[in-house]
């Protein structure tokens, strides 16, 4: 029995969706049942996912949006055709994504737990896979996802005293502060960035005829 068949037939209450794409299995798991289901992933002899490969956050704020308004402004110039992406929040905005590996069955699995931005807490799996410790700290640092039950949830990659969560889509690429030497104070101080954010290549979503079944393009 394949992994997908087993997952579908077992009817785990926490699993809301089983998807297969590019021969990779993705499970969408409900946040409330996540920790119990994580235990099953490790202990069920049919699954036995003994290695947690990766934990990461995802911010879906600008998913599928294009910033290249070609249809309206084709004749007015290149840079003017770029539009700011709106920060309209569609919930659930965040996801915590886990990648597992079973060395016994030689299987891989991806688990996605969606999170709403007003409640960014999720159970830590540090007690099941100790390697989750740093990966969860990283997701906390870069996205602000709070892993409950984590023994030591500190920032890990950003600077000491850093404010904000840099991999969120509404965090500017150039950052918010820069550091410089202040001769009067004889110290290094932070001040707001003075470089302009610049988009060299705008983001554009194209409907590529190779990937849709009808073979048509919407342009």
């Amino acid at each position, binding site marked *: 029995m394949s992994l997908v068949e087993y997952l579908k037939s077992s009817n785990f209450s926490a699993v809301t969706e089983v998807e297969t*794409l*590019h021969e*990779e299995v*993705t499970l969408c798991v409900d946040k409330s049942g996540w920790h119990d289901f994580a235990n099953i992933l490790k202990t069920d002899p049919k699954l036995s996912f*003994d*290695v*947690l*490969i*990766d934990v*990461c956050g*995802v*911010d879906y704020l*600008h*998913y*599928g*949006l*294009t910033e290249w308004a070609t249809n309206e402004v084709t004749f007015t110039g290149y840079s003017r055709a770029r539009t700011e992406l709106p920060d309209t929040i569609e919930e659930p905005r965040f996801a915590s*994504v886990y*990648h597992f590996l079973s*060395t016994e069955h*030689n299987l*891989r699995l*991806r688990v996605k737990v969606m999170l709403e931005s007003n409640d960014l807490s999720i159970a830590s799996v540090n007690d099941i*896979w*100790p*390697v989750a*410790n*740093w*990966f969860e700290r*990283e997701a906390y640092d870069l996205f602000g996802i709070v892993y409950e039950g984590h023994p030591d949830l500190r*920032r*890990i*990659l*950003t*600077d000491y005293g850093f404010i904000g969560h*840099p*991999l969120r889509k509404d965090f500017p*690429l150039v950052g918010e502060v820069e550091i410089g030497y202040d001769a009067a104070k004889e110290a290094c101080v932070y001040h707001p960035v003075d470089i302009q954010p610049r*988009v*060299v*290549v705008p*983001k*554009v*979503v*194209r*409907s*590529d005829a*190779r*990937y849709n079944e009808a073979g048509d393009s919407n342009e």
Partner: protein
Amino acid sequence: MSDYQGYTINFGPQHPAAHGVLRLIMNMKGETVQGIDPHIGLLHRATEKLAESKPYIQSIGYMDRLDYMSMMANEHAYVLALEKMLEVEAPLRAQYIRVMFSEMTRIMNHLLWLGAHALDLGAMSLFLYCFREREDLVDCYEAVSGSRMHATYIRPGGVIRDLPKSMPKFQPSTWHTKEEVKKLNAARDGDLLDFIEDFTQRFPARVDEYENLLTDNRVWKQRTVNIGVVSPERAKALGFSGPMLRGSGVAWDLRKLQPYEVYPQLDFDIPVGTNGDCYDRYLVRMEELRQSNKIIKQCVKWLKENPGPVSIRDGKVAPPTRADMKDDMEAMIHHFKLYTEGFTLPKGEVYQAIEHPKGEFGIYLISDGANKPYRIKVRASGFAHLSAMNEMCKGHMLPDVVAILSSMDIVFGEVDR
């Protein structure tokens, strides 16, 4: 002295044995380590955030700069992830070239590791010997891509150009007479493949030289045997991969178990340790040097016999040739679109892992149908290894911290990203 609680030492971030910019806060009692809190992120360059703002091909160069000691291996994982989503496959010759360079990269990485590891434990001369051999491989990088480190050679749909027909040669100068240069150029008369073939014939004897210096060396064994022992179960729980996992006795190698490219056609073995200490990890990597050499030999043989295209001809993914662009309008347009806007990937997500010299290196890529990645997560093996630092060092002496750290083969480019 009964209320003596020990003290705290700060190690790094600037320290020759920190392998980059690692800062360790060590709680000591006498010379025994009670606990370690590694502080990382001092080399964080926001690769993932930068990649989100660029078309796909422009991020290949960023991948080189992740683990900057095994450049093409990083590119390889990224490009394979793109190809998986695009549902294209590189021509067979390109796959052999990629595998050959991946294995050369593995040797480059292990040579640097060996030199630095030995240097950390007090064996200076080995560092110089390792770099002597590494130099030849770096020359191969240069011959094929024009760059000695950050090659950007592997591209979606193949590689950017075929192997060169000649090797660059040394020129006589103030420092080298004609006779000396003639000696240096001895292996460089043929093409690149001849040079690599010559290297593969020389190299096993060189590995013997390294082993002569270390493997049965009493001091070496005192510093590495039974240091930083990790059991197989614990290694899996701690997310180890690559030589770290194999050193603990788990025969796990993605090249065999989840093969990609032409690895199924190649003959090689997986070395496995037994005790899971620093010495076993050393032995595993030494054997991997020999196995990689064996793979390169097979690739050279195949590549000499099978000329052919090294990139797919789909103008939507791979650039057209210069000649085509001169007299074909379609090719011209393809070239322009590819290098301004880039190609778009279909909606979806993919995780592609490869057996990187340091362990499992994975790219998790989410696309929303745009010309830029929506999210890239780089799964660096060193990140998981370093997170076990506290557990591996507890109870060991201060000098063992350096032995354990360098046996992990840490490069901060990939840990901090």
